[in-house]
């Protein structure tokens, strides 16, 4: 199971043609206390670069951008009631979407962990 990282501070793990997407701990730390999450619904399709959700901290609203093309298989419904879990376990239980990849070749455009660590310095 490989994990990929985007310049928008998302992680994606892939198993077959399904992937799990979330934000990195670095992103969560930068956002600060997260108080609200608005997500797409099951069946929604999106293209690379689309705005696929909003994460709001006390201070500001931030968009989640799709790192590749796909379709929402499931959104993590626990986040609506417990948005703060995104600060605590953004790379674990507080995943955001399960997605079906439309164009798995796009994974090649993403970073591996070593490259992402370099990216965030």
């Amino acid at each position, binding site marked *: 199971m490989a994990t990929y990282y985007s310049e928008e501070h998302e992680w994606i793990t892939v198993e077959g043609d399904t992937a799990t997407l979330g934000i990195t701990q670095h992103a969560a730390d930068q956002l600060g*206390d997260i108080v*609200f999450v608005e997500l797409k619904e099951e069946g929604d399709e999106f293209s690379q670069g689309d705005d696929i959700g*909003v994460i709001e901290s*006390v*201070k500001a*609203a931030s968009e989640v951008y799709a790192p590749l093309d796909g379709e929402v298989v499931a959104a993590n419904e626990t986040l609506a009631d417990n948005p703060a879990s995104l600060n605590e376990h953004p790379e674990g239980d507080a995943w955001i979407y399960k997605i079906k990849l439309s164009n798995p070749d796009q994974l090649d455009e993403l970073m591996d962990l070593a490259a992402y660590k370099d990216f965030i310095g």
Partner: protein
Amino acid sequence: MTTQAPRRTPLYDLHIELGGKMVDFAGWDMPVQYPLGIMGEHKHCRAKAALFDVSHMGQVLLHGETAAAQMETLCPQAFTALPEGKARYALFTNEDGGILDDLIVSNAGDHLFVVVNAALRDQDIPLMQNALKDVTVTEVTDHALIALQGPAAESVLAPICPAAADLTFMQTTTAEILDTRCRISRLGYTGEDGYEISIPEDKAIEIARALLAHEDCEAAGLGARDSLRMEAGLCLYGNDISQAVTPVEAGLTWAIQKRRRTEGGFPGADKIQDQLQNGAARKLVGIRPAGRAPARAGVEIQTADGTAIGEITSGGFGPTVNGPIAMGYVASDHAEPGTEITLIIRGKPQPATIHPLPFVQQNYKR
């Protein structure tokens, strides 16, 4: 366009040491939060005490026997009868009745001590220099300003400054803290009891450390300052008040003393007196979104059936309220608390209600 490096306050090194996340705010390198986080800092201030660096604000001294009388030509406040040792919230207005800035004016005995917004010192100081005859206008550039806010503020400060305990809300004095003469004023911008302390810059870190050494005191940044003031229903210049709104529209009529309402004699008096008499067409109100989504500045306000009636000027999440809160202007016939309204958040209508300001009880020591 030239970009200048943001200025540093006398507390800069302490912010870095404490892990402050620094941002450029009004040309100053300021901590937006520390490792505790905005939510934690906010709640700590409501429960105990928080220390904020507000040294970016402009501190100005007005020397001259007629300073108080002449300030009345710039502000709709009464200063001539302001007793020594008292501070007053004030506004500079323009000829249209718009608000040029909000400020605190204190009678410090042989001078007035004035604190203005950081971003507006370059407007306010020339304004006073030009208008005030035979008054020396001096910006204080060698003093830090810190705010110690929260129900434990007195018990944090009094051990090193006994005089602080004798002050009540909006009183000011000078006293020694760690053998250094400071100006201590019992006021703030959080809705809590607390102080603002003007400290010679070379002693600022030492005194801040002494306060932070108290187990009830934590450092807090601009993020918590903003959420605290919003819950307290206090206006932020540039958001909730500006040249485009009058004190009456902004709900600041309480800040215009009776004599000035009657006599006028301040910029924009015609319009402001007319609005005091007949009401204004729009009003600043508190707003509680019904859902969890914060509604931030710029969000359109509509009636429940979709007619545009105004716009949000400040909004976000209130940690003490534990939900979204906002302030904004609406047509006066929709300003009654309890009125149901609609907010257009990211294109989608969301229900909300007009709410009285403040959102939390103010806990001043009267």
